[in-house]
């Protein structure tokens, strides 16, 4: 191991967490090597579709004018799909500045990595980190396929599978119930057709969050995003659900694409790319130990995802930044022990990242327990209500209300309804109570 392979910080993984981390360190004038296994930053990265304006600005203040963006999202639609029918709630705001933008990761992450290089980050691509080097249980560097690199601090931003965090015992193996398997398709469509179908203009974008449909009763959600000249459609289903039912994720996506509410939106489009990725869903209770001697974990590798709000890249960026700030303090003190790096955990706890995860810490447990209620029966009930409310068939309205309420109690046992309400209150309380 030669001395010239020694740097201040090594960051593993050039995604939003890794790049945000590396650029923050480089901007402070420290030496940082960013190692990416793909042929370029972004080439192994997949997500639903949107990056968030405010957190992205914290790292890249001018990204809105210089980054490769697809569309600025002005509308969120929440679609509750029955087997054939649907209820869609929409929130649209064209006047305020966009809260998020759709991006293509192969372009956007690559742009972020270029910005990092300009700031002085030494980016090493096409390189897999095989293992972490340790000395007296302190992480001292990384071993790649070709050579060893040494550093005072190693930051793991190597994504949801983080084999490295597992190697040093910071993370236990993920359980199938704590991760969702997502498949998605990017479907090419003419810009004007997209604008017409989604009722948007110019570079405006529309997001669909999809409940039910082929996923009725399953812990899974669908999504659609509009890109400049394509539509992204996909779904994520908790892996344990797929395992228990032995179903193929792409079969579910095919079903979703055929749904009468969805099919006209993508009609005539041509598949440009199919992809798959895991989403950490364990939440607060599954966040691993975030630091040890000479090492910290950020982004998906640390399971930092707020699945209810479709947030991940923002938690990744901010956690990367906070890990970088901690690394800088450690470098100034010349102390890279867990004692100093504990500051990272404190910073995360004081930020929205851990606060949000804590807010929803009971969500997934209740969702697992109650998927037959909240992701099936009540979704059907919403559609059933509107079906009743909109039907005109010479049946007196009062009769219809009585029938609706009668069916509601007939099709779900009273005890189950009480239990649903109890879990609903419990969830609400866990979200709203002040710590």
């Amino acid at each position, binding site marked *: 191991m030669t001395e010239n392979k020694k740097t201040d910080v090594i960051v593993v993984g050039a995604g939003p967490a890794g790049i945000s981390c590396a650029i923050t360190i480089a901007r402070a004038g420290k030496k940082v090597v960013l190692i990416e296994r793909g042929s370029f930053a972004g*080439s192994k990265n997949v997500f639903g579709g949107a990056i968030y304006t405010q957190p992205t600005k914290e790292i890249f203040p001018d990204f809105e004018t210089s980054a490769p963006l697809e569309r600025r999202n002005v509308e969120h639609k929440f679609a509750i799909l029955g087997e054939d029918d649907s209820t869609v709630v929409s929130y649209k705001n064209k006047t305020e500045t966009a809260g998020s933008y759709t991006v293509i990761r192969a372009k956007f992450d690559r742009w972020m990595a270029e910005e990092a290089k300009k700031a002085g980050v030494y980016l090493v691509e096409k390189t897999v980190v095989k293992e972490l080097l340790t000395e007296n249980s302190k992480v001292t560097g990384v071993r790649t396929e070709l050579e060893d690199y040494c550093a005072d601090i190693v930051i793991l931003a190597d994504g949801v599978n983080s084999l490295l965090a597992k190697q040093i015992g910071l993370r236990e193996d993920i359980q199938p119930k704590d991760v969702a398997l997502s498949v998605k398709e990017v479907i090419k469509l003419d810009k004007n057709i997209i604008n017409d179908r989604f009722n948007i203009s110019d570079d405006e974008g529309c997001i669909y969050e999809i409940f039910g449909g082929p996923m009725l009763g399953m812990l899974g959600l669908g999504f659609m995003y509009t890109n400049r000249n394509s539509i992204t459609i996909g779904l994520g289903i908790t892996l344990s659900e797929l*395992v228990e039912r032995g179903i193929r994720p792409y079969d579910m996506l095919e079903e979703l694409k055929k749904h009468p509410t969805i099919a006209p939106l993508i009609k005539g489009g041509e598949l440009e790319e199919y992809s798959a990725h895991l989403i950490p869903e364990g939440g607060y209770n599954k966040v691993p130990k975030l630091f040890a001697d000479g090492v910290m974990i950020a982004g998906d590798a640390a399971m930092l995802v707020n699945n209810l709000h479709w947030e991940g890249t923002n938690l990744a960026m901010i956690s990367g930044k906070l890990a970088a700030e901690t690394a800088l303090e450690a470098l100034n003190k010349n102390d890279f022990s867990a004692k100093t790096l504990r500051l990272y955990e404190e910073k995360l706890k004081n930020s929205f990242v851990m606060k949000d995860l804590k807010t929803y810490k009971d969500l997934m447990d209740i969702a697992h327990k109650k998927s037959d209620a909240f992701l099936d029966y009540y979704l059907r009930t919403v559609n059933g209500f509107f079906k009743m409310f909109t039907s005109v068939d010479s049946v007196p309205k009062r009769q219809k209300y009585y029938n609706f309420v009668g069916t509601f109690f007939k099709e779900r046992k009273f005890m189950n309804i009480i239990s649903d309400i109890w879990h609903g209150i419990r969830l609400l309380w866990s979200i709203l109570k002040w710590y």
Partner: protein
Amino acid sequence: MVLEDKLFTVKYTPDTVSHLTPDNEMCKICTNRICTKICPANVYEWDETHQKLIVNFENCLECGACRIACVKQSLKWEYPKGTKGVTFKLG
């Protein structure tokens, strides 16, 4: 659309050796062989005649679901080499 057509849209630079190495003895006694069902690229197929798990690693999307879902925890799952595997153009 069938899976083959979907995978046709994905850019691969396949290695000559597999980055996915199941322990076939465990596969033989595995009751559900869930990898053959949940993989989004249908990488795994069970060959009943030869009692062997066929691994079409060239099609792997590198999501990692098989590693986590494997009941026997007997799948050696590594990333492909730095220049190999999938390249997402629109991820």
